[in-house]
């Protein structure tokens, strides 16, 4: 099978230069990551840790 556009060995169908590339997918993924670790941190500290007494005081 060969696709209609000409492809290189790596399957590249178009060249994207530095100025025309906005890593918007990366931003989306990493914002999700940010929300997850922020939330997990709060849960771990305030629920798991502070709720796990006795604690060293």
């Amino acid at each position, binding site marked *: *099978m060969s*696709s209609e556009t000409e*492809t290189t060995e*790596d*399957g590249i169908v178009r060249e994207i230069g530095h100025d025309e590339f906005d890593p918007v997918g990366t931003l989306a993924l990493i914002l999700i990551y940010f929300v997850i670790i922020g939330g997990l941190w709060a849960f771990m500290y305030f629920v798991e840790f502070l709720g796990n007494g006795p604690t060293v005081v």
Partner: protein
Amino acid sequence: MNRPGPVGIALVLAFAVVAVIEFRTVLGMVGIDIAIGPYFAGAAILLVGGAAALFAVPEELTPESV
């Protein structure tokens, strides 16, 4: 969207195996207990499905195989 290839299926099933097993714990946290037997059987079926999908992966790498 393109139809997923065998590699995509194998990858999705790998994640599914993991999700199925961990999800049982999450359900346990909210008080829903599920017997361990059928749960692991389900995960095992997904694992076998993933392995089967891998056998359908062509050995030559082409853009279409992805």
